[in-house]
């Protein structure tokens, strides 16, 4: 902690030398915060006043809330009206269009790919659970993760923060103890990955 304080103090002096009026208060506040933390601050935790080069290298993967990334990157101007059946690249068949030939409601497309995929892929336990059975058992596609007791899970400041989704463990199952079974049946309407696939599908339509 003393090394860190020294480093910050030298930075503060540099900043003061350049812009004494603007930055002194903020930097002093940061030093004061670290001091009062008295060792509770992890060594790798980024500090706002560190230079960009060192801050970038020492920033932990979870330091930026992953849930904020997709929200901030969602386009506002071009975004069509949200749909109850938005196209997502999740492979769960429950999101597929109705299998009946008579389709009553459409699957609507958003003009940008769903940005939620990337953060979820690195933070699989941040996925929200979704009931699939009559017992409303929470389940997610991350449930094939190896079982791990809750006590052995590594500390995750982000996922443990209040307001975040509760971590989903591999032992997630119906309250009755029955395992949750996933269907391997392919959906009747294949999910097009590209616009070309979508086009092929619609252009192949012929009268019955």
């Amino acid at each position, binding site marked *: 902690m003393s090394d860190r304080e020294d480093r910050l103090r030298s930075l503060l002096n540099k900043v003061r030398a350049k812009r004494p009026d603007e930055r002194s208060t903020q930097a002093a506040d940061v030093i004061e915060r670290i001091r009062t933390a008295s060792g509770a601050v992890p060594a790798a935790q980024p500090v706002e006043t560190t230079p960009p080069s060192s801050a970038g290298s020492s920033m932990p993967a979870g330091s930026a809330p992953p849930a904020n990334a997709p929200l901030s990157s969602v*386009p506002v101007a*071009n975004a*069509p*009206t949200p749909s109850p059946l938005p*196209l997502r690249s999740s492979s769960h068949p429950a999101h597929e*269009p*109705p299998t009946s*030939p*008579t*389709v*009553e409601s*459409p*699957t*609507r*497309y*958003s*003009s*940008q*790919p*769903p940005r939620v995929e990337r953060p979820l892929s690195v933070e699989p336990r941040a996925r929200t659970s979704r009931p699939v059975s009559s017992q409303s058992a929470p389940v997610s596609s991350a449930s094939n993760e190896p079982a791990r007791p809750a006590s052995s899970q590594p500390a995750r400041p982000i996922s443990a923060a209040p307001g975040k989704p509760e971590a989903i463990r591999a032992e997630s199952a119906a309250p009755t103890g029955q395992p949750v079974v996933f269907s391997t049946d392919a959906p009747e*309407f294949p999910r*097009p*990955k*590209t*616009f*070309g696939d*979508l*086009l092929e*599908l*619609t*252009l*192949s*339509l*012929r*009268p*019955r």
Partner: protein
Amino acid sequence: MHDGRFDPSGFYEFNLGGGTVRTRNGDRVMVLSEGVLSSLVAAAARDGDLTPLRRLGELLGDQVLAGLDRPASVLTPEAVLGHVSAVTALFGWGRLTFERWGAALVIALRDKPDLDEDDLGAAALLGGMFSQVSQRQVSCVPAGDARFIMVDFEVAETVWGWFKDGADLPAIVGMLEAKRAS
């Protein structure tokens, strides 16, 4: 996958001295009021020749293609939609979205100008635009509620007949099935 978003900045170049408006591709365009255009389109629909509207749609498709760095067929539907809807909006043709009804791709065009009663003008425009974007000849058939179902040229007349006979979009989709075109 292509993740580039459409950049509308500098799309139009206004030359007050020269009295021209050009897109950033160099195409000269003109601004028409909805009332004037609707009378022209209505006349074209009565005559059964909507070729100018389809040609206009192809020009819009060219604008879309100019913003893509790869063929539209290899891009995600969302990426194509982003560019198509932006160009459509910049030309004042409304708010375009994609919907998927079963296997059918449906184009929804909200807040479009009221041109003709049967929406054939907008259908011709969309057909031209998506033919250009996809580099295939496609038809967009009006299906009610500002929606247009995209089908092959060969079945467009049949689908249009179903709609004129009173079939709504779910019924039309139900009367179609995916087959390999012969």
